[in-house]
């Protein structure tokens, strides 16, 4: 649009938490104070944008002057004045705040398809989306293409379900198209429940229109008239922005009756989840929309045959839908070639845990895990060493450091005993205990088990009890074998995906980190120093300066000592909360 000065302020969930709203406000204040809008006329613009991906550097601010982009990191409202004075008015960037090489490395190696406009456009403005070509794919699909043509393109693109299972999207749509029914539905699964995953949240918040556009194209391809977006209750901002986007679509005539003057009708409604992990499972999600308990049902039919209210339903994940408009516009060959032979395109991951550059990334399928961790992620936090990467959330497993050169695609990860999953990638280092990690995930699945089938309801409970026993120092000979046996049974006999995959975190850590389990059981020792019952805290008298920081912060009054003399921990009073370990500046508190 030829605007010469554009300011982009991150207003995703993380950006807002870091103060993005205030930074945006401050820019607006200063612009009107200096009457910059009067000076530059309509050649300047201040935008709120969605997630930029590099959440650990938020609030991120882009200042684009005549196409020249400068990115600032960790911006607070009181820093805005200097940016306006020096950079905008005098043209001299404030170099000390500029995000340099780290930001560059983070983005080098990424290929953005789904996230292309996330963090670039205002998610609350449909015009911004239209300016970058938004809804031209939907228009093309509705006015120029037949359903069969759309299905062929999606099939040829090799796009696979991004929710985790990786079912070919084109084949699903074809099933939906072929089945005859007067009523059909399109459902978007935005119930992103995996802990440690926020890909779908960022897309719904950062570019909600791309999801709706994907759904419109799917509706045309399958002949559905009604769509639902199921969003989890924990994502209030995503709900708000999706609702705005839907309202704007109705205003523009992109949703409702007679879309693009073609006579085609499609409506979209948001359904807010009420907090249940199992509702990410397709059949449970549909029961939830129907207003029932979200319990999975046996898959006697595919959803595309009998889904919501027993009508044919095409259900895809947020990211899957967001890929579709770009595939329609740029063609299936372009997309397919981005990935590997078996899995086309790119995948969004949320890279978190003990990693330097944590955030949202999008990479071509087939990239090596090493490139993700060390090039994009910048390596491990605090110079420690990598122990494992957990992928696929509670349904996935851990990939040990020695398999770092593995190619990231559906098949290779499955071979390594993990899964691609929806895209959570949590980096663990030597301070993470693998038994504790497995216990953590099992606690999660145990609590989220809907209770319908016995293997999942009772089996995971027994597995969890064994793990609790092991981490509290009461592990017995034979526990490892029992875990393996139970795991195999649960995997083979559970009703839905949640149960079938629930033992994965335990089985995969047993496969690669058996020695850690053995250390807990036989030596009563937690090698990483995490399991509370297996460690005691001690003060190294040689290092203690007697500053008293630990004594003041101890909630149990378990630390004795006088100022400037080495302190001592009364083990009988110590509740092992670890506060002293965290507050000591001299590393005098040790775990033994």
């Amino acid at each position, binding site marked *: 649009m030829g605007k010469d000065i554009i300011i982009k302020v991150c207003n995703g969930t993380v950006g807002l938490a870091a103060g993005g709203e205030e930074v945006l406000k401050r820019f607006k204040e200063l612009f009107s104070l200096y009457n910059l809008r009067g000076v530059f006329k309509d050649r300047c613009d201040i935008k709120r944008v969605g997630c930029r991906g590099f959440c*650990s550097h938020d609030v991120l601010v882009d200042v684009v002057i005549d196409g020249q982009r400068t990115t600032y990191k960790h911006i607070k409202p009181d820093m805005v004045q200097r940016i306006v004075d020096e950079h905008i008015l005098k043209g001299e960037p404030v170099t000390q705040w500029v995000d340099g090489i780290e930001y560059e490395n983070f983005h080098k190696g990424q290929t953005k398809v789904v996230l292309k406009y996330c963090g670039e456009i205002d998610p609350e403005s449909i015009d911004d989306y239209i300016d970058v070509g938004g809804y031209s794919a939907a228009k093309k699909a509705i006015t120029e293409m037949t359903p069969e043509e759309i299905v062929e393109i999606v099939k040829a693109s090799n796009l696979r379900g991004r929710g985790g299972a990786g079912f070919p999207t084109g084949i699903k749509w074809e099933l939906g198209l072929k089945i005859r029914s007067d009523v059909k539905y399109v459902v978007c699964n935005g119930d992103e429940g995996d802990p440690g995953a926020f890909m779908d949240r960022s897309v719904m918040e950062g570019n909600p229109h791309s999801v709706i556009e994907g759904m419109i194209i799917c509706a045309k391809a399958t002949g559905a008239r009604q769509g639902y977006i199921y969003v989890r209750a924990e994502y209030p901002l995503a709900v708000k922005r999706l609702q705005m986007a839907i309202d704007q679509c109705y205003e523009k005539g992109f949703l409702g009756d007679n879309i693009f003057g073609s006579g085609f009708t499609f409506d979209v409604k948001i359904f807010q989840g009420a907090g249940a992990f199992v509702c990410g499972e397709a059949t449970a999600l549909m029961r939830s929309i129907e207003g029932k308990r979200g319990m999975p049902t046996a898959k006697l039919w595919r959803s595309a045959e009998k889904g919501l209210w027993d009508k044919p339903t095409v259900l895809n994940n947020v990211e899957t839908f967001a890929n579709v408009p770009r595939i329609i516009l740029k063609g299936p060959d372009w997309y397919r070639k981005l990935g590997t032979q078996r899995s086309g395109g790119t995948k969004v991951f949320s890279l978190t845990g003990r990693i330097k550059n944590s955030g949202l990334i999008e990479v071509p399928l087939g990239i090596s895990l090493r490139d993700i961790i060390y090039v994009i992620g910048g390596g491990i936090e605090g110079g420690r060493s990598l122990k494992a990467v957990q992928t696929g959330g509670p349904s996935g497993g851990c990939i040990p450091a020695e398999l770092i050169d593995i190619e990231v695609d559906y098949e290779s990860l499955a071979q390594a005993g993990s899964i691609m999953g929806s895209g959570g990638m949590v980096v663990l280092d030597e301070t993470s205990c693998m038994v504790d990690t497995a216990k953590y995930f099992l606690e999660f699945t145990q609590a989220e088990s809907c209770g319908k089938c016995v293997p999942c309801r009772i089996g995971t409970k027994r597995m969890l009890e064994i793990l609790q026993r092991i981490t509290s120092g009461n592990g017995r000979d034979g526990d490892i074998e029992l875990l393996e046996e139970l795991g195999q049974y649960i995997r083979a006999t559970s009703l839905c995906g949640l149960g079938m995959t629930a033992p994965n975190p335990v089985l995969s850590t047993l496969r690669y980190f058996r020695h850690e389990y053995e250390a807990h059981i036989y030596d009563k020792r937690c090698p990483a120093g995490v399991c509370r019952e297996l460690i005691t805290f001690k003060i190294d008298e040689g290092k203690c300066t007697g500053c008293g920081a630990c004594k003041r912060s101890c909630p149990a009054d378990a630390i004795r000592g006088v100022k400037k003399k080495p302190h001592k921990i009364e083990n009988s009073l110590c509740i092992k*909360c670890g506060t002293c370990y965290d507050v000591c500046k001299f590393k005098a508190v040790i775990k033994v």
Partner: protein
Amino acid sequence: MENVLEEIYNNYLKSEGNVITILQDIERHFGYIPEEAVIWFSNKLDIPASRFYGIATFYSQFHLKPRGKNVITICRGTACHVKGSEKLINRLMIELDLKEGEDTTEDLSFTIERVNCVGACGISPVVIINGEVYGNVNIDKILREIKKLR
């Protein structure tokens, strides 16, 4: 209460809602699901109260008991767990004098809530106090905020 329930009922008719959306509206208005509200709707719609309770106990968004004036939500997602959210919870329980299994202080001033993942892993550990998101927190930071609310 009657008026509020009437309003929720009208909204239910207008938006073609279901039991879940009714409960969501009740929770939004009262902060929990009062028994009277369930009985009122059960009579009005001729749906057994057990269906309402079946759903209310299935989904974690619904609460059957009144909650504290201030709600402290601690994220227990993987990233937050790796960065010590469990320690934060234990410490907070001690500070607020809560025993195992309790989540609300006796004077109804604070409720501690654990949530699976709020999807703000880039700034873990994350704590939400009355709707406001705090990232990269430590126990001192939370205790300071709590002090302000007391």
